């Protein structure tokens, strides 16, 4: 306390107060934080403080401006525990491998190894799994998913019953077609938050600075959304069983129809994920993916109304729904498989690229 005398400038004095508590807190806090601390502990504290004192050097005069009593009071009333000597020790295991065992020679510093953007980026399954787990958990925690789930199930159940009583056929052809349309509405609601929300909240910066490729992020998120959608659709498996009780449905179209539904969901989730990477606004992402999916649906309608002709044929090829139609009639077309898988891969690729662009800004 030697240099402390008069400092007319109030600003440094105020600013120095936290500094003082940094020095004093561990010492004063010891009994508060851990009353039963062994004596070596407080010795260690003392040593640490001395070391810190030595290191602080130029800061010494500033530190002594605030009374240590204030620091003690703060510790007593504060909510988080004070940092003790144990915290100040750098205690991580295998310190050596973390800290510069590779010699930072001047040559290495001047000629760095540059790995070009878009080059080899390994995808570690552990990372995909981590992202997948987090996203899937989030789906089960989010009220939105339950809302979508309820609406889809209630509406499809209602339409299933009415289609039975109207048509009088033991078939799911109409129900599948309606469920296809539900996907157009439900998928954007489920996927819109995937990346857009992270971008808005700033967590994407952390994600992109992890030692992880964008493809791991995209894959994890895609699989989680897809899985949740499958879970969401799984209660509709009750319909075929119900049909079996009341009639004699043809199993072929039902299997093919479900396969088609799964494939269609896959494509839609990929599209939804991409729109979510394209904007930081969830609503915009949702609207965009709804518009895209709706266009898919419209294409089939337009083709129907155009009748025969080249345009109509092209539209039929492009519409995911027309392809889905074949499935629900019991036909598995390899062209359709190729169509859906390649489009899904395309949108996933786009998502990876768009996520990479988020890094540049």
């Amino acid at each position, binding site marked *: 306390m030697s240099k402390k005398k008069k400092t007319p400038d109030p600003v*440094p004095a105020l600013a120095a107060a*936290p500094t003082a508590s*940094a020095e004093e807190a561990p010492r004063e806090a010891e009994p508060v934080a851990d009353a039963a601390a062994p004596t070596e502990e407080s010795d260690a504290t003392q040593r640490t403080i001395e070391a810190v004192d030595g290191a602080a050097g130029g800061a010494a005069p*500033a530190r002594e401006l605030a009374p240590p009593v204030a620091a003690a009071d703060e510790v007593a009333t504060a909510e988080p525990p004070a940092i003790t000597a144990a915290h*100040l020790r750098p205690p991580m295991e295998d310190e050596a*491998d973390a800290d510069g065992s590779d010699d930072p020679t001047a040559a290495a510093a001047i000629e760095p190894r540059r790995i070009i953007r878009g080059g080899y980026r390994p995808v570690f399954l*552990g990372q995909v799994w981590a992202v997948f787990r987090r996203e899937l958990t989030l789906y089960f925690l989010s009220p939105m998913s339950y809302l979508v789930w309820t609406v889809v199930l209630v509406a499809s159940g209602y339409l299933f019953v009415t289609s039975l009583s109207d048509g009088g056929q033991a078939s799911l052809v109409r129900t599948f077609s309606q469920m296809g349309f539900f996907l157009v509405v439900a998928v954007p609601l489920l996927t819109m938050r995937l990346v857009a929300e992270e971008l808005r909240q700033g967590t994407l910066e*952390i994600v992109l*600075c992890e030692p*992880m490729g964008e493809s791991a992020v995209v894959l994890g998120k895609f699989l989680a959304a897809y899985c949740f959608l499958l879970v969401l659709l799984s209660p509709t498996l009750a319909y075929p069983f119900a049909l079996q009780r009341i009639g004699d449905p043809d199993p072929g179209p039902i299997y093919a129809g479900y396969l088609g539904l799964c494939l269609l969901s896959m494509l839609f989730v990929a599209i939804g994920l991409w729109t979510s990477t394209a904007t930081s606004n969830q609503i915009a992402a949702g609207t965009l993916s709804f518009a895209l999916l709706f266009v898919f649906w419209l294409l089939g309608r337009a083709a129907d109304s155009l009748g025969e002709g080249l345009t109509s044929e092209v539209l039929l090829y492009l519409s995911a729904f027309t392809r889905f139609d074949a499935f629900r009639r019991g036909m598995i077309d390899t062209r359709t498989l190729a169509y859906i898988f390649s489009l899904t891969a395309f949108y996933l690729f786009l998502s990876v690229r768009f996520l990479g662009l988020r890094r540049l800004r």
Partner: protein
Amino acid sequence: MIVVKNLVKRYGHHLAVDRVSFSAAPGQVVGLLGPNGAGKSTLMRILAGYMTPTSGHAIIKGEEPAYLSVAARSRIGYLPERAALYWEMRVDEYLRYRARVKSVPSKKIPRRIEQAAEICGITAVRKRIIGQLSKGYRQRVALAAVLLHNPGVLILDEPTSGLDPLQMSEIRGLIRGLGTHRTVLFSTHLLAEAQAVCERVVMLRHGRVIADGTPAEIRRDTFGDVIHIEVAQSLTELGQSNGADFMARLQQAFPEAQVRLDVAAPRLRLTLAQQGATEPAFRIALAQALHENGATPIEIASAVPTLESLFTRVMESAGDP
């Protein structure tokens, strides 16, 4: 080990980082000091691999994270300015998620989480939901997550912003502790914080390095030494017709000093900066000079300059771009 060489980042016409060069050795805590908008965050984002520079190099242990080397990024612990967390997760879940994402071997994950939680003092809240924690605790959780893969280089962007003074001092203590075996680069706009934590300070303004050295060195280089003077009389009492005479005479007595008028009445207060001004001999001379000019000094004290004054001075000597 951080090396930054001639780093430039341009947003359209705006030059956010302008030919910045500095380096940090292992075991060194380096503070990036500057007002808001000085380019601190941009620089850190480039170092963390979140952005690519327009030109120049930002090298960490011989590799440039900006060019997307996953290996380079695995050696860095980066805490962004907005330490955004997943609020709906529990602390433990979150740390496990981050550890997996960082490819920490699964056998080591529980131990690493335990250690990081202990270092950051969050062991007691490990089962709590992050969204329900106080801001100080959330900051600690974010810091713990950064330590999970045991990085050799820590890049912390304003780790104490928005915390109360006690929490600030705790985080500072933590950073000092971490800095003994790692390279730590952290940014702040508080000079006191930089003084308390760093061995070295790199000052930025308008994207340029305007000073680089220990806090004491910078202070000495830019200010010489600074003393505050208070006299019993007001400026009008001293200055007969106007006070300029008194000021001019004082300046005449100390031609090398930079004298600034702080308060004119009821008692005149001045700030005087000159190399060696805090020496007793100088202060004695000053007291005599004041006395000869009719002023009764009641206070002559050496001062720690505020960040603001330091910046103003450094800016003046560097020249505004």
